[in-house]
């Protein structure tokens, strides 16, 4: 049990060598600050990268299964073994045939397939030609139910002008970049021609700027029904897009819901393996830096304690002669290590939080003209607690060897003045 005697000796040791104590506290504080800062900044950057990559995409896509025809060699052999020869040709079915027909039945099921699912959007997508005057360009159209799709990507919030949720049949909504390229303004007319020759006139009902290149540069939103007409899908859709509360659970949720569906279920993770590898490498680099910094602060604590043990060799011997046990002496030095770490935390945590709040307040103008915070900073209490725990445990471990050495001091060596 830690006694008043141990606390008082430990505390006086540290106060007596105040300059070394302050230096060590500084090292621990910087280490704690570094843990909090690096963790938060890198997590924020990763979230930002992932959001930029996936923000315009559903986290999970539910698509029709690929229909690969069976080859003759896959067919069951007739029982009669009559020696008949079956001749055939392997033909891949056209992509257009891959569609979800009974989507209205599946949508309520998907809505409740997992509590992590926040939005389900039926999608119709394909390439069409967009005409205005003499200009003609291939664009991708996305036929959507606006309210549902706004749960996947917030178009309405990012409208520069016009409307998205209240888009009618015969309306299109496009990105500001595409609108500028095409020279169209709100209420201008464009003509879209589908792959099977269906051509319809549309009115520009809204222009948005989401900041996502994939959406702003070459995508045109139409109502689901218009999309179906243009692409000749009649009542079917091309796929479902699903948004989750936490995008990092995508693969988990995808694997969970896939067995209940007669469709192909893909998470964004599988579509972006390189991104995932990059993030993983970044995390490992971060962990390495944090490990090094923790070790450095551990050495800082250990070095001051080794110094104290060496300089207090005689006093330790006298305390032992007077009846202090080896465990008493060891605990004094462990208290010293943990005290240094604790004060280091009390300094480092507010410094780290302060620095992050300072950075969180910075705003800059991006190349797209949007004013945004360059750092995505979310200060997590768990990170603060974790950094403090790491420092405290490091203090305890770092003090172990000096403490053991102190516990072994032989009073007889000391009292003869050796």
């Amino acid at each position, binding site marked *: 049990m830690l006694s008043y005697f141990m606390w008082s000796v430990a505390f006086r*040791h540290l106060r007596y060598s105040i300059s070394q104590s302050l230096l060590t506290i500084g090292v621990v504080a910087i280490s704690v600050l570094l843990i909090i800062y690096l963790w938060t900044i890198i997590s924020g950057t990763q979230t930002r990268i992932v959001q930029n990559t996936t923000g315009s995409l559903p986290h999970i896509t539910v698509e029709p299964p690929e229909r690969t025809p069976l080859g003759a060699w896959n067919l069951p052999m007739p029982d009669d073994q009559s020696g008949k020869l079956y001749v055939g040709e392997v033909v891949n079915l056209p992509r257009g045939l891959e569609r979800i027909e009974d989507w209205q039945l599946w949508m309520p099921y998907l809505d409740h397939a997992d509590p992590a699912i926040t939005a389900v959007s039926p999608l119709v997508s394909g390439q069409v030609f967009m005409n205005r005057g003499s200009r003609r360009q291939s664009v991708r159209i996305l036929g959507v139910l606006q309210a549902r799709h706004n749960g996947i990507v917030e178009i309405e919030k990012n409208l520069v002008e016009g409307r998205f949720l209240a888009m009618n049949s015969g309306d299109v909504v496009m990105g500001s970049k595409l609108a500028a390229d095409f020279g169209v303004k709100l209420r201008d007319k464009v003509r879209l021609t589908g792959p099977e020759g269906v051509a319809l006139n549309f009115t520009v009902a809204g222009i948005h700027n989401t900041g996502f290149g994939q959406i702003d540069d070459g995508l045109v939103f139409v109502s689901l029904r218009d999309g179906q007409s243009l692409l000749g899908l009649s009542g079917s859709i091309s796929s479902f897009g699903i948004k989750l509360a936490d995008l990092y659970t995508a693969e988990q949720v995808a694997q969970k819901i896939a067995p209940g569906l007669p469709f192909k279920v893909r998470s964004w993770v599988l579509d972006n393996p390189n991104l995932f590898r990059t993030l993983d490498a970044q995390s490992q680099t971060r962990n390495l830096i944090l490990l090094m910094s923790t070790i450095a602060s551990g050495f800082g604590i250990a070095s001051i304690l080794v110094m104290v043990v060496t300089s207090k060799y005689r006093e330790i011997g*006298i*305390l032992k002669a*007077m009846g*202090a046990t080896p465990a008493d002496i060891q605990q004094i030095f462990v208290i010293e290590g943990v005290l240094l770490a604790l004060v280091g935390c009390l300094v480092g945590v507010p410094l780290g939080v302060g620095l992050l709040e300072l950075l969180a307040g910075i705003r800059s103008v991006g190349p797209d003209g949007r004013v945004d915070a360059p750092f995505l900073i979310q200060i997590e209490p768990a990170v603060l607690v974790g950094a403090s725990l790491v420092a405290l445990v490091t203090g305890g471990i770092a003090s172990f060897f000096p403490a053991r050495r102190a516990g072994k001091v032989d009073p*007889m060596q000391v*009292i003869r003045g050796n």
Partner: protein
Amino acid sequence: MSASPVVELDQVGKTYYNGAVETPVLFDVSCAIVPGEFVAIVGGSGSGKTTLLNLMGLLDRPTAGEIRIESVKVTGLDEVERARVRRDRLGFIFQFHYLLPEFTVIENALMPCRMRGREFELAQEPRMRELLAAVGLDDKLKARPAQLSGGQQQRVAVVRSLANNPAVVFADEPTGNLDSKSGRMVFDLMKRLNRDSGTAFVMVTHDDHFALEADRVIRIRDGRIQGTKGGKG
């Protein structure tokens, strides 16, 4: 003997082993210290007198024989148990005072009590203040050891040795590091405290003048008790 001894040594021997080299230091030492007596241990350098003191003070273990403190056999105790006996029943004064520089005079004097707990320390504080006043340090209670002279520091160490009301105080050349005047003052102080408190004192000394003033002198030569002179026992 008027009372049961506070320390008894029964055929105690001590041999140091350094690898294959055996160095016998004490042979068949039997003696007893009775309550309240002042014993001086004298002998030449390397005679074994400090080893004897360390064995009595449970700082070292004998390789033969048996030691009893207040009639309790302590030879078989482990390190922690021996530390407890030292803390609760024995006092120590060393040639070098080794006060803790971070603590004040009164805190240093009370350190053995602090080891036993805060309440015990607080209970002993008035007595220690009186003792420090009695040795002329009443105006130095809040001073740090570095602010005291060598003689004053050793007086604090002497007072400290009595903090736990020990049965016996062991002093290893307590005047060896002091000038003759300070040495005399510290010795007289020990004598006075021995008389006033009734605590037995066992002092190793080179100084024959001090030895002659002890109740009893144990003379050691080549690891054996050569003779004792005087004494209450």
